[in-house]
């Protein structure tokens, strides 16, 4: 699904060069749930931005879903972000003056889907995250957990092959964290590849594979763990299927 070889990313100012990624090499297979951990400043978010085509890289090769992304135009990268990738952010990144329904609608609009199909997808996604009743609420009228579920619904509505989650539970309490992780596991079990950056060892443990990044390099890859299916996961997995 995702294959990076010797990726380098350097931030430059007039006098300083910061090597954010240094010969980063990794590969994520289709259907995997991979967590990325590492200390602050280790390059986790830069990795996610480069992997999610939100930022460029200076050297190396990157194949996403079989395509060499280094030669894509802005339009082509936007299309991949729109159709192949889904993003979940720590700070939810909902658009404040759009209702829940319209927030979930945003990526579908850029895909140019007909109104009926968009409505069906949005309703199904909101139902999956249990927010059908809140469709006319503004983000400010929702709790943090609910806002993150809207962000997940926004991803689900687009039905991407790959999800990048950047500390998705960073702003949530433990109950909400569990809910969101349950949702992500359910989505993964339905076949979607997930790459999640997190500071939380508990969340990282719930991934099938755990990468540790330090100084812009992947320094440790833990072996896949055995995932136990819990009742909540089964429900989401069946909904997604």
């Amino acid at each position: 699904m995702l294959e990076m070889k010797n990726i380098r990313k350097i931030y430059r100012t007039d006098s300083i060069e910061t090597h954010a990624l240094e010969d980063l090499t990794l590969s994520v297979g289709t259907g995997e749930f991979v967590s990325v951990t590492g200390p602050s400043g280790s390059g986790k978010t830069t990795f996610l931005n480069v992997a999610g085509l939100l930022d460029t890289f200076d050297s190396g090769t990157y194949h996403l879903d079989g395509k060499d992304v280094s030669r894509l135009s802005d339009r082509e990268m936007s299309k991949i972000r729109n159709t192949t990738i889904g993003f979940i952010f720590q700070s939810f990144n909902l658009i404040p003056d759009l209702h829940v329904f319209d927030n979930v609608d945003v990526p579908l609009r850029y895909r140019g889907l007909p109104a009926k199909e968009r409505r069906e997808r949005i309703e199904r996604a909101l139902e999956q995250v249990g927010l059908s009743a809140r469709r006319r609420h503004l983000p400010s009228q929702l709790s943090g957990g609910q806002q993150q579920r809207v962000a997940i619904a926004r991803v689900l509505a687009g039905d991407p092959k790959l999800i990048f989650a950047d500390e998705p539970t960073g702003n949530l309490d433990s109950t909400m964290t569990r809910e969101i992780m349950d949702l992500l596991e359910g989505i993964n079990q339905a076949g979607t590849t997930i790459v999640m950056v997190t500071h939380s060892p508990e969340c990282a443990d719930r991934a099938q594979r755990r990468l540790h990044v330090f100084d812009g390099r992947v320094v440790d890859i833990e072996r896949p763990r055995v995932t136990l299916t819990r009742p909540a996961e089964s429900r989401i997995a069946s909904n997604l299927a």
Partner: protein
Amino acid sequence: MFFYHVRIALKSLRRNPVLSSLLIGGIAVGIGISTAFVTLRHMYVQDPIPGGSDRVFYVRLDSWGGQQSYMSDDPESLPDQVTYADARALLESPIPRRQTPTFVGAAFLHPATAATRPWQAEIRLTFNDLFDIFRMPFAYGGPWTEDADARAERVAVIDHDTNQKLFGGENSVGRTIRLEDAEFRVVGVLAPWRPPLRYFEMNRGATGKPEEVYLPFNLVEPMQIATRGNANNWKPIQPYSFEAMLASERVWLQYWVELAAPGDVDAYGDWIASYVEGQRSLGRFEQTTRYRLSTVPQLIEEFGLMPAGVRAMSIVALLFLLVCSLNLIGILLGKFLARASEVSVRRALGASRAQVFWQHLIECELIGLIGGGAGLLLSLGVLAVIRRHMRNGEALRLDSEMLLFAAVLSLVAGLIAGLYPAWRACRIAPAMQLKVQ
């Protein structure tokens, strides 16, 4: 996608009403002032005879004698009107599609009831072609017939205001009006019509209203109607009589022709030249063979009928709009860059740079259009003020052409104000904003 962008733009405008009002107000002031002054210029330069300005000509002949030019300080000048004899001769030309000599007179118009006092009305004597040449609109009836012209029938066309005064605005076709002691049958009533200039006779108070009553030209001899307008002669009429005046070298008639096609002007010119040569051989037309065929726009230019400064004022007003638009660039830039996080989210969710650019440009165009709408209302006020200081202010109005101009100007103003901010918005690097929102 376009309507989605419009919806997003409307939401954005509602998000900060004070800022939005400031932006819209800036455009509105620019559009209001510039539309008003461009409308003023448009009044003078618009196509005076829609569809016919290049085919309608004012005829002048160099009938001036005494070995002097018409204007002593301009050897190229021609008499600005023609003699009665020349007008009669010009009528013989088969080339023009329509033609008429015409002049203005005056007569007391007596209302049918004593409720309104008689008043001295301006009357224009003309052939029926005048109404078609100048596309004069009729509310009731129409021009008199060619037979009525030929037989000098006592028929009349009256204007809208006269019909209001005499008949309360009813259809008065078939009714009679009394001019001095003669009665005339009304055959047509003009619809309200106020051209910016009185095209028939632009060398006499061009900004005045068109005349109130129109009568067949051939009544000039039986009724001995003299001109109330300008008249000049290089040879005295002695002893004076009406018949002697008609036969004299006095220039007092305007002569208009409408050719079937602009290309006919050469053939008509040849015809006139041949007439002039014939007159020279008879001892008239002492100067070299000269004549002039002028279109209405050429006459406006020649007589300097556009007030000095109108063109300059309209240019200054457009520059003012440009300054308004340029001032808004900074405000829009601040507004868009403050929304960098939203732009980043949209980019992450699949919006291309082009889509972000269009979204912001559409917002600017929406500001331009709303500002343009408000500006149009403002321009109505400005026009009302200008109108009060003009004799022909009645003709100063926002027509469909000016409304379209204002709409286009609004879009251009929105484009000028929004192009750079929209470009900057679409260049926002999404990765820098998503983490810190």
